[in-house]
């Protein structure tokens, strides 16, 4: 009965205590109607009644928004575990399934602690254009009251936990590039440093008040990134490429067959990602609004279109449409629509997805082998490439017919379709900053971790598998 707590106290006072609170509203409404019918309210002060009505309406909206946002937060967490853990876990060889799932799971614990202690403050409190301040350190003052800068209708605690889930999944996405060869200790240190050096600054620049790229809250270069195209997918995707280049190829790549050990797990994981993405994108409306619906619709359409175009591309290219192709395409479409989801109409969303499916297929099937880097699970090919595509296309298709959030008190033209061609340049600048930050930041962190701990496991350990050598257990003890 948590929602009962946000019922307007005025209404609650009209009924006796001892009645179950869920009936209180009904009784209050019936009593109110009776009172109106008998004219008993005629004597009440109209101003007081209006104030009570406003308070009741506000609390009802808050209850609705908060419910959706808490569900969204849970959905986004579900994307990391079990979604990403299963998706990536199935794509590696049997001997590395647990270590790969661990790369996702550990984020749920590690980044949560970092976010609570410092991350939220460094992203969302006011600071410089590049990084937030220390106002909310240790979640000081982050509780039931809304933070009106970001989401006026939900408790700041909800906003904080929702944003936390984004910080969790982002370093998890990078793990696709270093899977099957990274040392666990080095991975944990890398992640800890990475969120401070790359994620927190980028998230502050795009979403934090006063951030350099923030379109609504005082940014000097306005970029549109509804749910994290630059913040989540470009940073993670580009960092993934840097990791793949730095770590080098897996033993045996590409001569030995390195096949996914269970596309069944991967398919379950990808479908969980698809569902969780509704929390990721539609939740980024920060309320149970029409905008959330628009983002939900755009998200779903893009995923579907991209699944079809990736499969069609590989059907033409390799002769058969595959399950792996279908789920890879869906994820590519979801990545590409992420920055655009709360800005574009349904048909542009279909188009963005359709382009993303073919583009990302080309990236992983052709470009990767052209350059010969070993991005084990294609974190760069899907998230880096798809994220960049989506960020640019947001500048093309963003329209105030979908998102009429005002800038400086007035509705403005958003993307090219609204007549604001310059937005594409702003989007490109946003992409450029994300790429540079990810490349430089990740490279420096890798160097530090390599000196302190060594990034890669020994060759023998790699051949034996990370599950046994890093964690002392196996994923499948079928004889047990």
């Amino acid at each position, binding site marked *: 009965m948590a929602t009962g707590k946000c019922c307007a106290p005025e209404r609650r006072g009209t009924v006796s205590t001892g009645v179950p609170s869920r009936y209180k509203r009904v009784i209050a409404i019936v009593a109110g109607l009776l009172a109106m019918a008998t004219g008993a309210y005629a004597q009440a002060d109209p101003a007081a009644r209006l104030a009570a009505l406003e308070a009741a309406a506000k609390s009802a909206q808050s209850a609705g928004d908060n419910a959706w946002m808490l569900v969204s937060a849970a959905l986004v967490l579900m994307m990391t575990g079990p979604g990403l853990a299963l998706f990536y876990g199935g794509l590696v060889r049997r001997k590395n399934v647990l270590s790969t799932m661990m790369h996702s799971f550990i984020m749920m614990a590690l980044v949560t602690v970092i976010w609570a202690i410092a991350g939220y403050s460094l992203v969302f409190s006011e600071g410089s254009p590049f990084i937030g301040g220390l106002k909310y350190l240790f979640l000081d003052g982050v509780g039931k009251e809304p933070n009106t800068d970001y989401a006026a209708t939900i408790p700041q605690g909800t906003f904080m936990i929702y944003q936390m889930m984004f910080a969790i999944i982002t370093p998890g996405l990078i793990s696709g590039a270093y899977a099957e060869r990274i040392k666990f200790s080095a991975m944990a240190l890398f992640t800890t440093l990475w969120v401070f050096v790359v994620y927190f600054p980028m998230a502050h620049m795009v979403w934090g008040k006063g951030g350099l790229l923030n379109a609504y809250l005082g940014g000097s270069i306005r970029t549109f990134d509804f749910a994290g195209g630059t913040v989540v997918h470009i940073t993670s995707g580009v960092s993934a490429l840097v990791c793949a280049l730095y770590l080098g190829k897996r033993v045996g790549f590409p001569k030995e067959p390195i096949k996914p050990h269970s596309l069944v797990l991967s398919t379950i994981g990808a479908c969980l990602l698809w569902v969780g993405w509704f929390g990721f994108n539609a939740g980024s409306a920060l309320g149970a609004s029409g905008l959330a619906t628009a983002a939900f619709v755009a998200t779903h359409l893009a995923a579907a279109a991209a699944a079809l175009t990736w499969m069609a591309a590989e059907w033409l*290219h*390799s002769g058969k449409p595959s399950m*792996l192709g279908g789920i890879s395409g869906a994820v590519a479409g979801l990545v590409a629509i992420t920055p655009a989801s709360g800005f574009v109409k349904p048909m542009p969303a279909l188009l963005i997805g359709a382009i993303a499916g073919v583009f990302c*297929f080309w990236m*992983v099937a052709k470009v990767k*082998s052209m350059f010969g880097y070993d991005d084990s699970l294609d974190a760069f090919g899907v998230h880096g490439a798809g994220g960049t595509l989506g960020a640019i296309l947001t500048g093309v298709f963003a329209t105030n017919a979908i998102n009429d959030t005002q800038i400086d008190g007035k509705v403005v033209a958003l993307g090219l379709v609204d007549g604001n061609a310059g937005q594409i340049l702003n989007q490109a600048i946003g992409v450029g900053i994300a790429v540079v930050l990810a490349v430089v930041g990740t490279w420096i962190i890798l160097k530090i971790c390599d000196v302190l701990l060594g990034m890669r496991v020994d060759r023998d350990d790699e051949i034996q598998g990370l599950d046994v050598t890093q964690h002392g257990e196996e994923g499948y003890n079928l004889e047990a």
Partner: protein
Amino acid sequence: MKKIEAIIQPFKLEDVKEALKNIGVDGMTITEVRGHGRQKGHKEVYRGQEYNVDLLPKVKFEMIVNDTRLDEVLDTITSAARSGKIGDGKIFVCEVGEAIRIRNGDRGEAAL
């Protein structure tokens, strides 16, 4: 005594077992193996990365029979395991020097 090694298609396993049972052969050892002869493998493609899978799953029968029954058993296996396509497998026959029943020490054909 002869040892028969028959490498056959996995989907013919039940047919061959049934046929051998019908002619009274009830001792055999079966292993799941992988290999290839003239049969080409197949291609698998994961995100554009092609792998040729040329070691294909097969089933290997091993049994020891009396010399007098050899032809009958070979004919039975051959006809039961045949689908007429490439990949049906091969049968090899060799001499066996000795056979011992561990339970009671029987030797030779008495141990079969």
